[in-house]
C-alpha cells in the first residue's frame, strides 16, 4: 500500500492531473470509509466493498467540485454517507451491525447508562440497541463517538447546521439510553 506525505489537498490537485495519483488518496481512506459504511448500514463485507467502490468513483468524478475550505475527509465521508443511504434504499437489506470492541468502549464512555468495564458481556445488547434506533440517531452516534468526529465535521458530512447536529446528538443519546434499558 502506498503511503503519501502530501496533504489531501495536494493529492486532489495531483489526481486531477494524473489518475494514478488518486491511489494514495484511496489508500488513505479505504479502511476508514469501509468501516464507516459498515457501521451505518449493516451491509456485509461484499456489499460494503461495492458501496466503497462506488463512493471512490463518485469522489474521482467530482474531484473538481471539492471545496478546499472543507476537510477532504469530511467531503469523502459525506459522499460515502450519501452513497450508503442511496444503496440501502435500493437493496432494503441489512445483515448485521458489527462494531469492534474499541468502538463500543468509545460509545460507552460517552453514554451514562453503559459501563465500559463489562463491555464484552453487553456487546450484543449494544449492537441490538444501535440497530433498533432510527437511522438519523445511529448515524450521529457513530460519527461522534465511534468515528470521533467533531461537531463541525459532522455538520459538513451530514450537511446539517452545527446547532442541529448538537440537538441530534442529545436526542440520539436519550433515545439510545431509553432503548437500552
Amino acid at each position, binding site marked *: *500500500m502506498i503511503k503519501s506525505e502530501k496533504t489531501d489537498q495536494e493529492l486532489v490537485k495531483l489526481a*486531477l492531473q494524473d*489518475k*494514478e495519483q*488518486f*491511489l494514495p488518496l*484511496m*489508500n488513505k481512506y*479505504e479502511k476508514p470509509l*469501509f468501516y464507516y459504511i459498515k457501521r451505518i448500514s449493516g451491509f456485509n463485507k461484499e456489499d460494503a*466493498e461495492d458501496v*466503497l*467502490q462506488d463512493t*471512490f*468513483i463518485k469522489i*474521482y*468524478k*467530482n*474531484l*473538481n*467540485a471539492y*471545496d478546499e*475550505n472543507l476537510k477532504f475527509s469530511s467531503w469523502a465521508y459525506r459522499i460515502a454517507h450519501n452513497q450508503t443511504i442511496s444503496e440501502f434504499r435500493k437493496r432494503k437489506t441489512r445483515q448485521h451491525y458489527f462494531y469492534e470492541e474499541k468502538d463500543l468502549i468509545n460509545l460507552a464512555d460517552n453514554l451514562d447508562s453503559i459501563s465500559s468495564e463489562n463491555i464484552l458481556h453487553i456487546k450484543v445488547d449494544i449492537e441490538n440497541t444501535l440497530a433498533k434506533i432510527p437511522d438519523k440517531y445511529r448515524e450521529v452516534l457513530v460519527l461522534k463517538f465511534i468515528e470521533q468526529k467533531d461537531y463541525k465535521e459532522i*455538520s459538513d458530512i451530514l*450537511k*446539517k*447546521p*452545527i*446547532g*442541529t447536529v448538537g440537538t441530534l446528538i442529545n436526542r440520539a443519546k436519550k433515545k439510545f439510553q431509553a432503548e437500552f434499558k
Partner: protein
Amino acid sequence: MDLSKKILEKITHDKITPKPRYTFLVKNYLVWAGAGLAIFLGMQAVAIIIYLVKSQDWDIYQSVSNRGEFLILSIPYFWIISLALFIFLAYYNVKHTRSGYKYRFSTILIGYFILTAILGGTSYAFGLGESLEGVFTEKLPVYERMMQYRHKIWQDPEQGLLIGKMFDVSGETLIIRDLERKEWLVDISSTTVPDFVKTKPGILLKMIGEKISENEFKASKLHPIIPKHLMKKPPFDKSPCKMKEIGACARNIR
C-alpha cells in the same frame, strides 16, 4: 489485489474522468442567481406591501361600521403569499449553495426578512412600490379584479360610503354601478369633480356623502381610483381641463 488498486483499474478501464470544473461553477452561479432573484422579487413585494398598507383609506377608518372587516380587507394577501413563495425560492437556492447547509431555516428566514425589508423600504421610499402597483393594475386586468376586494369597505351607503363604476353623466348627476351591480344616481353638486372623470366611463369612484333614497346618493367628497403616478402628470394637477379640452386632457393624463 487490494480494493484501491482494483478501483483504479476500473477507472482506467471504463475511461472515467473527473467532470469539468465549469459544470460545478455554473451550477453554483445558478443557485446564487436564484437566491438573488428571490431577494429582488421579495424586495419588490415588500415595497408594494408598504405602499398598499400606507395607501389604504385610513382617514375613513373612524367612519366605517365594521372596523375589523376594514383591517382584514387592508391586508395585501396577494403580495404576502407572493413573498412567502419568494422566501421558499430563496431558502431552496441558499440551501443548494456549497455552504448553504450551515444555516438553519430560521436564520435564512430572518436574514431574508431583514434584507428585503431594508431593500423594499428603500424601493418604497423611491416610489417603486407605487409605480409597480400602478403598472400591475393597469396592465393586468386579472390583478386589478383580484385587488378589488380592498375596496369592499366603501360599499356601505348607510354609513355614507359608496364605490362604483361611473357609466354615464347627466348634468350634475353621475350614474354609478356599485360593487353589487346596483345603479345609483349620485348628486355631485356639492363636490368638485375632476373634469376628466366625466369623460371616462368605467372609471372607479369612491364617494363620501349621504344616502338620500334607495338609489340616490349625495356626494360631498369624490375620489377617482387611478394610479397616482398618472395623476401627478401635468396638466391635471395644476391646470384643470375645461370641458371643451377634455379629450386632450384625458389623453395627457395617460
